């Protein structure tokens, strides 16, 4: 029931927000989302699966018995962390839209709450069909949020977004149905769609070719959602045209549906294929990191810049996942959360500027720090968090992802297969440098430099007759929206260990098929045959050890080779 409430509360709030008069709907939405946050906090405190790989909050109901479809919910620590992220962002998005949205408010808040319900459903689903339903349902609210409340090019943006993601996920559905069919053949025609059962079945019973097909189908849907390099083109358009809160939710949680899908389905379900294709996928993500970063460098539109930076950042996230070791995967999960916090906050900051000046053109404004010091503080803070300044959250996850890729070498000294290697990490690391460049250039253009205010709106208020004239600098409401995000960014940056410890268990559980492969491989090679399992500090410590022993090993091998002829 606890899990179901994560879906039912926002749904009920959505219906309520649609039913009350327009002028009340934003308060109803805020109240509903606060209730959701409170529920999330209570559930988090009593959540039994932090640090373990188990699932808690399980609830099941039969739904479509003849086909074995169930209404099964449950969360492991990774899912719970992402649910909490979603719950937290929701009231901030609602409060952030109070002045930005003046028309059709009921629809706006109803769609937004409906979106949150669907996203929670994706994270909590333990049944493939329910997962797919929620996954697809996220398209509908976001389609309307962009198409009704978006920028001038909104129609094209919403349709492109819809078609890309819908097309991809159809193939994901086909792939998952294929797995379910194979499982039913093995079980004498009894169908099940339980994610756990299908994962167990697929990871052990499918042949390498079948796994390859399933991986391809899964990637079709999830790679579009992430978005990975060649299929990312919908994202900048959708982000740029979406209303501020839509962008925040899009960057904050919806892109995570893709990486979460990879984490929940691709990795544990088809280990053989993932191991085989990991270098390929990692290469795509590195191309994405660098390519999107270079595009960011030449952007004039600040919102589009942050949108492309998302493509670049999510590349790190995928790279960490496909390093196939706990360090990388942990970093990747952490990245999902951190990217949600800092990029979400950046979109909010940009939205506040847009509300005041009605432009996103970086050439049109400059030196805003003098005019809006509070805003400038937050902008700089979140930019630094986004580019990975040590001490803030972005650094931790970026470092872990790259480190995971670095130690993911063929020698299997980590106890996990190593499809990648130092070169992958080194080239991807260039992305961090590029990120620093384009983000600092952006700061230099709009926050610092000679004061310049776009469009002659020099009177401190916008001239577009908005009923709630905004102050020159941030209003208390806007500050209240940004502060929680800033606090979390700082807290995770300074002390990531509670969070990494909390998600560690499920990361290791997800990577279990790989550990088994690696142990089997390393039995022949007793040196370094241990499982790199516990927290990052220990992981770091141990990871350096194999490097030494590996060097020794190669030296010995070289000596043997020298001796043999």
């Amino acid at each position, binding site marked *: 029931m606890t899990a179901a409430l994560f879906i039912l509360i926002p749904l009920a709030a959505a219906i309520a927000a649609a039913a009350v008069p327009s002028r009340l709907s934003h308060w109803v939405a805020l109240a509903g989302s606060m209730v959701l946050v409170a529920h999330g906090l209570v559930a988090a405190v009593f959540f039994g699966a932090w640090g373990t790989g188990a699932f808690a909050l399980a609830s099941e109901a039969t*739904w*479509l*018995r*003849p*086909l074995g479809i169930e209404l099964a919910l449950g969360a492991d620590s990774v899912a719970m962390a992402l649910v909490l992220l979603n719950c937290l962002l929701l009231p901030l998005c609602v409060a952030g839209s109070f002045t930005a949205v003046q028309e059709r408010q009921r629809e706006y808040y109803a769609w937004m709450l409906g979106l949150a319900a669907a996203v929670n459903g994706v994270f909590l689903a333990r049944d493939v*069909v329910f997962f*797919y*339903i*929620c996954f*697809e*349902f996220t*398209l*509908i609210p976001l389609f*309307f949020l962009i*198409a*009704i409340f978006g920028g001038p090019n909104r*129609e094209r943006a*919403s*349709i492109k977004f*819809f*078609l890309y993601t*819908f*097309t991809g996920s*159809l*193939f994901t*559905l*086909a792939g998952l*149905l*294929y797995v*379910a*069919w194979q499982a*039913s053949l093995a079980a004498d025609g009894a*169908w099940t769609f339980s994610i756990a059962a299908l994962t167990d079945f697929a990871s052990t019973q499918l042949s390498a070719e079948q796994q390859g097909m399933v991986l391809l189908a899964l990637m079709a849907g999830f790679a579009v959602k992430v978005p990975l390099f060649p299929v990312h083109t919908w994202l900048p358009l959708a982000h740029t045209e979406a209303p501020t809160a839509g962008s925040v939710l899009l960057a904050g949680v919806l892109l995570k549906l893709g990486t979460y899908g990879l984490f929940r389905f691709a990795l544990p379900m088809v280990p053989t294929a993932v191991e085989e294709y990991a270098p390929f996928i990692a290469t795509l993500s590195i191309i994405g990191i660098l390519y999107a970063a270079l595009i960011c460098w030449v952007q004039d539109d600040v919102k589009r810049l942050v949108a492309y930076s998302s493509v670049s950042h999510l590349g790190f996230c995928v790279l960490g996942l496909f390093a196939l070791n706990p360090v990388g995967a942990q970093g990747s999960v952490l990245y999902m959360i951190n990217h949600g916090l800092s990029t979400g906050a950046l979109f909010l900051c940009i939205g506040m500027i847009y509300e005041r000046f009605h432009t996103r053109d970086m050439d049109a404004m400059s030196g805003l720090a003098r005019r809006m010091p509070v805003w400038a503080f937050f902008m700089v803070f979140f930019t630094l968090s986004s580019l990975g300044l040590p001490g803030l959250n972005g650094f931790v996850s970026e470092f872990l992802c790259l480190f995971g890729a670095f130690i993911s070498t063929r020698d299997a000294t980590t106890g996990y297969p190593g499809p990648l290697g130092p070169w992958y990490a080194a080239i991807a690391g260039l992305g961090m440098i590029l990120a620093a460049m384009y983000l600092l250039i952006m700061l230099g253009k709009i926050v610092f430099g000679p004061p310049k205010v776009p469009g002659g709106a020099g009177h401190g208020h916008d001239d577009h007759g908005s009923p709630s004239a905004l102050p020159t600098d941030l209003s208390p409401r806007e500050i209240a929206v940004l502060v929680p995000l800033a606090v979390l960014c700082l807290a995770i940056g300074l002390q990531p260990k509670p969070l990494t410890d909390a998600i560690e268990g499920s990361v290791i559980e997800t990577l279990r098929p790989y550990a088994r492969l690696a142990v089997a491989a390393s039995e022949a090679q007793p040196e370094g045959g241990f499982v790199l399992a516990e927290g990052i500090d220990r992981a770091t410590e141990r990871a350096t050890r194999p490097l030494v022993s590996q060097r020794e090993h190669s030296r010995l091998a070289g000596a043997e080779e020298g001796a043999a002829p």
Partner: protein
Amino acid sequence: MSVAPVLLAQADAAGAAAVTLARLILVVPEMVLLTGAVVATILGLSRSRALRDATPAAVVISLLAAMLLVPLVHTPERAEAAGLLMPMLGKPVRMAICAIGAMLCLVSIGLVDRRIEAAFASGRAAFDPIRVIRGEYYAFFLLSVTGLMLVSTANDLIWLFLALELTSLPTYIMVAISRPSRRALEAAVKYFFLGALATATFLYGFAMLYGAAGTLILTEMRDVFAAQAAAGGLGILAVLGLILAILGVAYKIAAAPMHFYAADVYEGAASPVTAFLAFVPKAAGMLALMLLLGTVGWHGHSVVDDSGARIFHDGLPRAVLYALWIIAAMTMTLGNVGALLQSSAKRMLAYSSIAHSGYMIIGLIAGPGLGLNSVLFYLLAYGVMNTAAFAILAGLERQGEEIESLADLAGLARRHPLLAAAMAISAGSLIGLPPLLGFWGKLYLFIGGIQAGQIGLVIIACINSAISAWYYLRLVGLPLLSPPTPQAEAVVPTPSIWPRVAALSGAAAILLLPLLVQPLVEAAQGATSATPADFAVVLRGAGAPAP
């Protein structure tokens, strides 16, 4: 002379009488509909305006009465006694047909006789029973629905043929009288001549099947074909006959390569008749295909390899499978690509209904169990959502002419938010978006297809669903998001409220029926439950290896 043969003959006679009685009772709902048709004819000619206006009410009442009668008369014992090929098929199918038929009837209220009724009312013309066609229209409507219902209880080829013709013949006239325009006449002529060609095709196929089996009774044909399949494979006559029959029936379901008429005919007919054409003949064709394929069965067929050894394979006979496979792939693709290019909403929906036939053929290929069940479920879902979409077109008009182009829908939400929402819901369901009804239909079909190993077809269907999203989104985007154009400003609701009622109730059904997905799926299972077991028994009896 012994007494035994006489006793046996008496028992036979008694048995035959029992079978006839069972069959007669099974078709009581159809008798109710025929009675309704007669009543409609008389009411439509009445001098009193109120009585004339009550004609559609009589139609709806007889449909609802038939729907309530179906579960009473269609008991498993009686279906068994009647010796049907798929004994329980008729129960849920006929109930669904009656429900959707009632919806279709609501859509067509206010369609015929509008001008002449206005003339009578204003006194410009005296009442003239020759000039009113309301009675004929509704009588043909019910006759066609009766034909469709009879298809589901067909137990021999003659019955099947007559039922299919009873479904089709009234629709030719309905197209012609649906609106006073040359295009309607053109559409009717096209529809009639091509329909006659199709009828000839499948009648020829039926004749070949009779030649191959030596019987017209479907259950006996099944036994003969099973024995042939076990003894060395189906004869060429049977396969050829089946393929010809499939091609002929493909006309009814507007499947490629017999789909060319659809866009012109659907566009030429008035929207309510188009909605009718897109469901009633199509459902009849689907059910007929189900029965025809059921005679050869989905098990125990073999091919002979180069060395002369027989290799048994799952599913339909190879030649039939390939024919259906190609038909399915072509139908989906041509339908969706065709729809993509249209600027007329009616033509677009016409092509989209072609595409939906293609999806359903996947389930036919998949066979008993999930495959056929999913076809039945999809027929229901398709009937509801397609009718709802056409009902919105039927409920709007511009300067007394029904709207056709997509541009007419622009900005509909400003003035008719409910209709715009209903259009968005129907389009979303036609795309297959969860959690709407169409999604469950598609999911079920995909599961059925994959379970039969038809992964290629399911992938083609996935690609096609993605293509279809492109054009269906226009039905969402134009009414809800676009600003109204001057042309669209002139669009007003029709005087009759009932098409809009049908549209809204269809949209409500799309939203609410997913809550009943479990009982609906169980009903579909019940419809085909007796089918696979029968095949297994027959095959074991014929000495074929267990599949």
